[in-house]
């Protein structure tokens, strides 16, 4: 079924882009996602893709051109990181509110400052309220698989929303490791053709996109947008079930790793989950009931399902690879804590910030978190400090 290969995360997503061969790609290079437009340009130059590549003068223009192309009826993608996503900010909201199913390959990198090129989730987490779907990957395989599923989710008639497929900068994007690719035909058949119901270049149906909405329309429009995000949850699961049929790989809102009987658990996003799995196995070998909840889908936020997966835990550490400077932990911790409260969860919660500006997250770090959780599960959070850092010099 799969073609065994070794690739970096960027190579893997670029390969998915080649197999899907969308109509248009406007993009502006930025580390560590520069290779994506670079690989696509090479594929086009070699005649392996016929995507229209638009070299633009900034990321604001990249997203603007993507909006124009998608509204015109073209299946459109782009790629960026960090400050590039920040420069798209205004247009991210426009793309989402105009309900344009653009796919954006995001290679997560810290927003400045301090000036830094390494992995952090501050870029996509900052855009979490822009109305885009967000799906995260643990490794190159998941980045590839998620990109293959992206258009099926985004273009679904009950969704029609742009989608961000995220992978950890450098750690995944530039690390070469094993991967199983799908055959071109299987990808093409799975993704299918894009036939938008309404599009600007349809000569039989002139249309207007992005009209001014006075206050008696804007709120209704946002509620409809919110409904699309609610619908995306079901569609993400349906598409994952279909993807399993062609790939043999299971995907959902999250992955529960040795969580069923876990008393202590780490919740995390991205490459840290692989490292945490190794720590879980070490603890299990010592007879400790440790587990991992890996969040794959952050938008829509599957709060009820995540809280359900943690129902048997006595202490949970929620890890954020970004600060939100709320003085109370990161965004995943905030949203999941709220969901646990709604679910009447009894678990003690630690809100842990890790891996900022590319700080390495090690098996030892994960073990330290589990050790803290064990202590809290046994004796309660005696110093009352929920919001902590791991991997910090102090």
């Amino acid at each position, binding site marked *: 079924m799969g073609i065994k290969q070794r690739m970096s995360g960027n190579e893997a997503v670029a390969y998915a882009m080649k197999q899907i061969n969308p109509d248009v790609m406007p993009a502006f290079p930025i580390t560590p996602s520069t290779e994506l437009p670079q690989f696509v340009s090479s594929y086009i130059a070699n005649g392996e893709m016929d995507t229209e590549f638009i070299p633009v003068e900034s990321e604001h223009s990249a997203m603007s051109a993507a909006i124009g192309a998608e509204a015109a009826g073209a299946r459109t993608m782009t790629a960026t990181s960090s400050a590039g996503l920040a420069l798209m900010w205004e247009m991210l909201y426009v793309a989402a509110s105009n309900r344009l199913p653009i796919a954006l390959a995001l290679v997560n990198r810290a927003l400045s400052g301090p000036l830094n090129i390494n992995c952090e989730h501050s870029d996509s987490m900052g855009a979490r309220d822009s109305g885009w779907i967000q799906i995260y990957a643990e*490794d190159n395989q998941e980045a590839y698989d998620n990109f293959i599923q992206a258009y099926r989710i985004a273009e679904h008639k009950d969704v029609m929303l742009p989608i961000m497929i995220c992978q950890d900068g*450098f750690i995944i994007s*530039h690390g070469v490791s094993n991967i199983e690719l799908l055959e071109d035909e299987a990808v093409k058949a799975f993704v299918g053709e894009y036939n938008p119901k309404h599009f600007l270049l349809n000569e039989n149906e002139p249309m207007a996109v992005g009209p001014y909405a006075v206050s008696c329309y804007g709120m209704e429009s946002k509620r409809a947008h919110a409904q699309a995000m609610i619908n995306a949850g079901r569609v993400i699961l349906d598409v994952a079930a279909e993807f399993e049929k062609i790939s043999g790989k299971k995907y959902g809102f999250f992955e529960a790793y040795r969580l069923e009987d876990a008393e202590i658990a780490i919740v995390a996003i991205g490459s840290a989950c692989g490292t945490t799995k190794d720590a879980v196995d070490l603890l299990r070998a010592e007879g400790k009931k440790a587990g991992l909840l890996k969040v794959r889908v952050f938008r829509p936020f599957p709060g009820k399902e995540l809280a359900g997966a943690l129902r048997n835990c006595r202490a949970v550490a929620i890890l954020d690879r970004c600060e939100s400077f709320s003085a109370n932990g990161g965004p995943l911790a905030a949203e999941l804590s709220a969901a646990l409260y709604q679910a009447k969860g009894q678990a003690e919660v630690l809100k842990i910030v890790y891996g900022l500006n590319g700080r390495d997250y090690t098996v030892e770090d994960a073990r330290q978190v589990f050790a803290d959780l064990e202590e809290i599960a046994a004796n309660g959070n005696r110093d009352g400090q929920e919001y902590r850092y791991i991997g910090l010099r102090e």
Partner: protein
Amino acid sequence: MKHLTEIRWHGRGGQGAKTAALLLADIAFGIGKYVQGFPEYGPERMGAPVTAYDRISDSAIRVHSNIYEPDFVVVVDDTLLHSVDVTAGLSPNGALLINTEKGKDEILPLLKGYKGAVYTINARKVCMETLGKYFPNMPMLSALVRISGILEKDVFFREMEASLKHKFEKKPEVFAGNKKALEAAFDAVEQISFAADGKRVEIADRRVA
């Protein structure tokens, strides 16, 4: 047999340490291993110290951190011995490989009392005699295969030949030079220190993977 081998490369920007690490991952993949090859990104400047890593395993690799307790360390430039703690975390059961023209009396005092085996190779000499240019990464890769036993010699040369042939399809003279460099490097490795337990470990007997 250990199921996971971890290797750390120290070089300077432009010397090809990252390329060598990725090439090793490529070749290990070619013989059916699970691999990771990745650089650690710092200031990307010609001459700046760079670190790259390899993991080679018989089972899927999930960990995504850097390598702190490598089995082998390769130092592509001996001037790094003064500024970088190259033996940090290096297993005494593993080995250190240094590209240098210097003898053991000059090198060993710089290794902070490392207790494992130490090897040197004069990659510059190998390069100048075979390629006519100084590209140390290929000889270092060959020397690493020799001292680590992570790949069979024949398998390594077969896979490298295929890879280089493909890479230098239109430049057969470059292919020939690189092939010679790999072969010469394999024989140019010298052991300057043995593991502290006094057990003499012959180069060819060192099999970890």
